[in-house]
């Protein structure tokens, strides 16, 4: 399989108003697309500052429109938008809108891909300057850039072998591995994944020192917070919850007062969670959701004065 066949295999087969399969003229279309895109970028960079906002607003509004319409227009029930025939005009419009959502999403992904290049450019530039000028800690920058280069080369080489050279799937078995496959395994599984886990587990240490410092009885609120945290922590300890519960059980048998059952650790912790914690979380979630809705609306309608014109 060569790169051309690979790209053909990746492209979608279903055609809609928003998406045409270019078939055999793929390379030509890619070249046309690239030329158009570059031309558009060049054109946009020459737009005067006062027009810039209008251009941004137009693009934002058009990109957001399919999502808003898809939410508001009745969505045809159990429809396969690419293979089904709409039953009436209402459904026709519904199909049209829902088919539009995917290309917009794809466009965002493509833009994201190009922006990743911009990000990597920033990273490489900052660290190359540091190495060139021998600034403080330039050694770290050297490590970063060399790791970046090695990972990219080995990763790409490994992928090329697996996707194009190895036709029979022999590389899925470790015995058939070539040195580059071992290198990729060492770098990804052996180093990267383990460092990822190590970073995550460091949170345990930070929780300990944060708890040591933060849970101080300085005020009434702090005391309430500490007491509830303590109950929830104790409840996580099964041995303690069990022993405490057994004690309460005995007490209930002795006194004949079932009200005491409320003082079981897990019952109390459950009460704290469902009566205090959950409603608070719900209230915060409502606030955050409304905030996001308002922000999204302002961005979509071009009401937000911040951003580029701040």
């Amino acid at each position: 399989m060569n790169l051309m066949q690979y790209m053909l295999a990746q492209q979608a087969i279903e055609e809609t108003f928003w998406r045409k399969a270019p078939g055999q003229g793929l390379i030509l279309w890619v070249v046309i697309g690239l030329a158009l895109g570059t031309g558009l970028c060049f054109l946009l960079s020459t737009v005067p500052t006062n027009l810039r906002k209008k251009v941004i607003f137009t693009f934002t509004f058009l990109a957001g429109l399919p999502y808003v319409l898809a939410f508001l227009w009745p969505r045809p029930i159990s429809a396969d938008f690419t293979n089904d025939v709409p039953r009436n005009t209402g459904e026709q419009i519904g199909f049209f809108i829902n088919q539009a959502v995917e290309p917009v999403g794809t466009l965002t992904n493509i833009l994201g891909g190009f922006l990743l290049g911009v990000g990597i450019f920033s990273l490489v530039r900052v660290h190359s300057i540091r190495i060139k000028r021998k600034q403080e800690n330039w050694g770290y920058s050297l490590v970063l850039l060399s790791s970046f280069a090695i990972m990219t080369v080995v990763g790409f080489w490994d992928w090329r072998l697996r996707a194009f050279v190895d036709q029979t799937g022999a590389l899925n078995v470790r015995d058939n591995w070539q040195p580059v496959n071992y290198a990729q395994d060492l770098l990804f599984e052996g180093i990267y994944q383990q460092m990822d886990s190590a970073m995550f587990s460091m949170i345990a240490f930070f929780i300990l020192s944060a708890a040591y410092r933060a849970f101080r009885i300085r005020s009434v609120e702090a005391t309430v917070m500490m007491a509830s945290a303590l109950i929830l922590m104790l409840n996580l300890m099964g041995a303690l919850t069990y022993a405490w519960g057994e004690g309460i059980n005995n007490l209930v048998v002795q006194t004949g007062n079932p009200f005491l059952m409320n003082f079981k650790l897990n019952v109390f912790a459950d009460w704290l969670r469902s009566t205090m914690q959950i409603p608070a979380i719900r209230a915060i979630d409502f606030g955050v959701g409304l905030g996001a809705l308002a922000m999204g609306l302002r961005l979509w309608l071009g009401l937000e004065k911040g951003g580029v014109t701040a």
Partner: protein
Amino acid sequence: MTIWEKMQKVDRRILYAILVVCVCVGLFFPTTIPTDPDPSSKSFYAEVMKLEKGSTVIIQTDWTNSTRGESMGHFENLMRLMMHGDHKFVFYSAADPAAPQVARTVLARIVAERKGQGLREYKVGEDYIDLGFFPNAEATNTTMGSNLRSVWANRKSKTPTGGEVDVWQTPVLKDVKNIGDVDMMIVVTASASIDVAIQRLAQKVPITAMVTGVTGPGVLPFYQSGQVKGLAIGLKGVYDVEYMMVNGINDVEVEGKKVVEWDKVGKVDRVNEGTTFSRGRAYYGTLHVALVLLILAVVMGNVAMFASRRRKGDAV
């Protein structure tokens, strides 16, 4: 500087060293600790065990290596429960491209373990399907709700003989037309990906979840409202499920005592085959040690603060 003032400003590296030592020691001594499982874990276990033998289940697995301490235990328990009930399942991820591979590794280990124990071997393409990764959780879950067939169209599954077959022709999905035909959806996650699944699918299929300790509180409102039928949270959730696999719920022991009691359901069976106590049991003791240490740190911090305050008060 008095000892109390010194304690108030103790070097964090000393705290870290104590934590490392205590946690490592705990890992060498797995112990069975009696516990009373959380109500949310109980409903999770009851919901899964109530599924009829041979049910069809969708598993969304959104965790990777970084949270394996909790999520791997959850996923192992889930695999054992699925295989115990002879359920057919599909698994995929909508959050992380690395997630399916991590799940695949665990699944292979559990299959080998059960084969070694003389139990029926689960086969790809017959008993389960590996669907891989779907980018964009929002779009994936929405389309799953409206048209399951289109979202998994063109996906292939391996067969036990080494070939490939369209997933819709496998025994697992043959009779499934839409999401309503699935008996349960189970989300194993370490992130907010479950929110999307609840928003898009909770009205169409019963959802249960196994989440990390940090994600837990965020999902609890959905458990309370009934949108999530059962919820195992964090390491405690892993141990709770294992504990119920051993003891059942409202199941009378040999000595005539119910180890796990819950008035919300009748008797829920124990799992009487294969491994039951496993990763949860191995880590649960360590959780106790870490929590005791945390509580001690909080208490010491406060004692030191009060003592040094009092001394300052005396001096004035």
